[in-house]
C-alpha cells in the first residue's frame, strides 16, 4: 500500500524522458506505481481490511439479535466452533466433496483436454460446447440438476426410478459431486489443454519410434511435461471446490459445507461472532491447502513469474 502514498502528479513529471537512464527509470517507476495503485487500493480495501476486521469480530460475542450482550470473549468462539459436531460434519463433508470431485474432474478433464486437443473432426464445436458448462450460471445448472432428480418433475429420477436422490444422504452426495464435476470439468480441461500444447510433437514422435505405446507416451512423456499445468489446475480447483456453496444451497438444503454453515450462522442466525470465526477458520484451511500445494508439490503459483525479468 505504500505505493499509493507516492503519487503526486507523476504524469507531468514523466514528460520528456531524456536519453539518460536514471530519469527514464524514475518516470517508469512512478508510472508503474500510478497504474497499479487503484487496483491495489481496491483489493486491499475490500479484502485486507475485512480480514483483519473478521479476526476481531471472531473474538467477540456478537449476536445481532442480542446486540446489548456483545462483549470481547477472545477465543471462546473458536472453542465453541471447534467443539461443535456440526462444524466437523460440515468440514468432513466439504473435504470429501472436494477430494472426490477434484479427482473425477482431473481424470475427465484430462480426457476432455486430449479430445479438444486432438480431435480431427469438429474441434471448434467440441471447444464451444465445452465452454457452456464453464460459463453457465452455477445456480441455473444446480436448478437443472435439482429438477432432474426431483421425484415429481425429474427425468433422471424417473429413468433410474430413484425416488429420493436428493434426500438420501449418500445419493445426495453423489448428485452434488455430479453437479460439481459437470460444471467444472471443462475449466480443468482448458487449463490442462494449455499444458498439453507445451508437449513437443518431436518428443512424442521420438517416443513412438522407440516403441512406446499410447499409454506409455501418455504417462512417460505427456504427464511429466505437463506436470506444472496439472498442479496449477489441481490447486485452482481444490481451492475452488473447498468453497462449494451454490450447488449445495440449491440442490440439498439439508446438507452443509463449511460455506453453508457460515452463511447459516451469519444470515439466518445473525450471529456475527460465530460466523466470523468460521470465516477465519475457512481462510486458514485454504491457506494451508495452498501452502501444501506450493511447498510440497512445488506448484509454480500461476503468475508468480509475471515479474518477467526475474
Amino acid at each position: 500500500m505504500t505505493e499509493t502514498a507516492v503519487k503526486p502528479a507523476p504524469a507531468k513529471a514523466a514528460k520528456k524522458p531524456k536519453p539518460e537512464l536514471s530519469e527514464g527509470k524514475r518516470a517508469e517507476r512512478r508510472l508503474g506505481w500510478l497504474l497499479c495503485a487503484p487496483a491495489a487500493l481496491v483489493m486491499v480495501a475490500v479484502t485486507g481490511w475485512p480480514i483483519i476486521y473478521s479476526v476481531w469480530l471472531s473474538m467477540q460475542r456478537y449476536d445481532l439479535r442480542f446486540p446489548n450482550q456483545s462483549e470481547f470473549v477472545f477465543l471462546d468462539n473458536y472453542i465453541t466452533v471447534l467443539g461443535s459436531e456440526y462444524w466437523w460434519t460440515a468440514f468432513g463433508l466439504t473435504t470429501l466433496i472436494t477430494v472426490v470431485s477434484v479427482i473425477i474432474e482431473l481424470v475427465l478433464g484430462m480426457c476432455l483436454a486430449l479430445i479438444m486437443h486432438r480431435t480431427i473432426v469438429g474441434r471448434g464445436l467440441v471447444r464451444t460446447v465445452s465452454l457452456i458448462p464453464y460459463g453457465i450460471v452455477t445456480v441455473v445448472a444446480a436448478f437443472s440438476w435439482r429438477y432432474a432428480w426431483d421425484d415429481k418433475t425429474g427425468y433422471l429420477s424417473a429413468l433410474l426410478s430413484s425416488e429420493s436422490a436428493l434426500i438420501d444422504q449418500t445419493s445426495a452426495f453423489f448428485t452434488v459431486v455430479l453437479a460439481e464435476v459437470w460444471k467444472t470439468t471443462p475449466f480443468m480441461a482448458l487449463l490442462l489443454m494449455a499444458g498439453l500444447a507445451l508437449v513437443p510433437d518431436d518428443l512424442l514422435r521420438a517416443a513412438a519410434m522407440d516403441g512406446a505405446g499410447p499409454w506409455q507416451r501418455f504417462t512417460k512423456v505427456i504427464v511429466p511435461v505437463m506436470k506444472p499445468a496439472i498442479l496449477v489446475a489441481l490447486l485452482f480447483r481444490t481451492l475452488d471446490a473447498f468453497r462449494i456453496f451454490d450447488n449445495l444451497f440449491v440442490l440439498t438444503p439439508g446438507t452443509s459445507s463449511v460455506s453453508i454453515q457460515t452463511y447459516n450462522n451469519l444470515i439466518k442466525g445473525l450471529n456475527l461472532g460465530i460466523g466470523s470465526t468460521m470465516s477465519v477458520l475457512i481462510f486458514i484451511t485454504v491457506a494451508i491447502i495452498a501452502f501444501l500445494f506450493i511447498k510440497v508439490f512445488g506448484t509454480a503459483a500461476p503468475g508468480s513469474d509475471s515479474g518477467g525479468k526475474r
Partner: protein
Amino acid sequence: MAMMATRTPGRVFKWTVVDVVVVVYALVPVLWILSLSFKTKDAIADRSFIPTEWTFQNYADIFKTTDFIRALVNSIGIAVIATVIAVILGTMAAYAIARLDFPGKRALVGVSLLIAMFPQVSLVSPLFEMERALGLFDTWPGLILPYITFALPLSIYTLSAFFREIPWELEKAAKMDGATPGQAFRKVIAPLAAPGVFTTAILVFIFCWNDFLFAISLTSTNASRTVPAALQFFTGASYFEDPTGTVSAAAVVITIPIILFVLFFQRRIVAGLTSGAVKG
C-alpha cells in the same frame, strides 16, 4: 498434433462418436432446463425430457412480475459496471506488470494471487457488517465492490499474459519518436491490446454474472438482488403455485448471454482462460 492428423474413415468415425459424447455431456442439463421452461403447468410433472406441448406461458409470467425484471436489471447493471471498472483498473495494473520495472511489482502479483484463491465466504461476514455500517448493504455498490475485487486478479493475470505477446518494438519506436511512456501506452499499445482487453471483459462479466454467494448474502430486497439470488425467492412465493416452470424460464433467460458469448467468442475465451493460468 501432426502425428495424429491422418484422416482415415475409421478415425473420423471414432472421433465423431467421441465428439457426440462430449456434446451430449455438455448440453443435456441445459436442454433439460430449456425443456422445463416450455412445459405447460400441467405437464411440468410428466417427467419426460421433451415437452409434449410447448408454451411460452412461463416466459410471459416472469416478465409480468416486477420481481424478475428488477432482478434482471440489477444483474445486468451490476455485472456491467463491475466489469468496466475491473477491466480498466486491471488493464492499468497489467500493463505496469508486463512492461514496467518498479519495486513492489511482485508484492502486487502476490496479493492478487492470494485474492484469486481466497475463500469468498471468509469475506461475507465482515463485509456484511461493514456494509451495514456504511449503508452499502443491499445496494448496487455493495455488490459491485466485492465483484471488482475478485475480478481484478483474473483480469490482471489474463491481461498481463496478453500484454506480454504484444510486439513491444512498436512502443520503443514510439518512445524514440518522443512519446512519453504514458503516450506510448495510450496511442500505441492500447489499440493493440484491445482484443485481450475484450476477452478479459467477457471472462470478468461471466464471473460477475455467475456470483451467488455475495448476491444472496449482501442483499435483502429487490433493490439489488440479482437473478441467481432472486431465483431462490421464486420458490414458495404465493403467487406462483408451482415455481418450477417460472424458475426454469428465468434460468434460461440468464443463460442466453452466456450462450451468445460462447458461440461468438469461443476462441477468445479459450485463449483467455489458458493464457493467464498456465505459464510453463
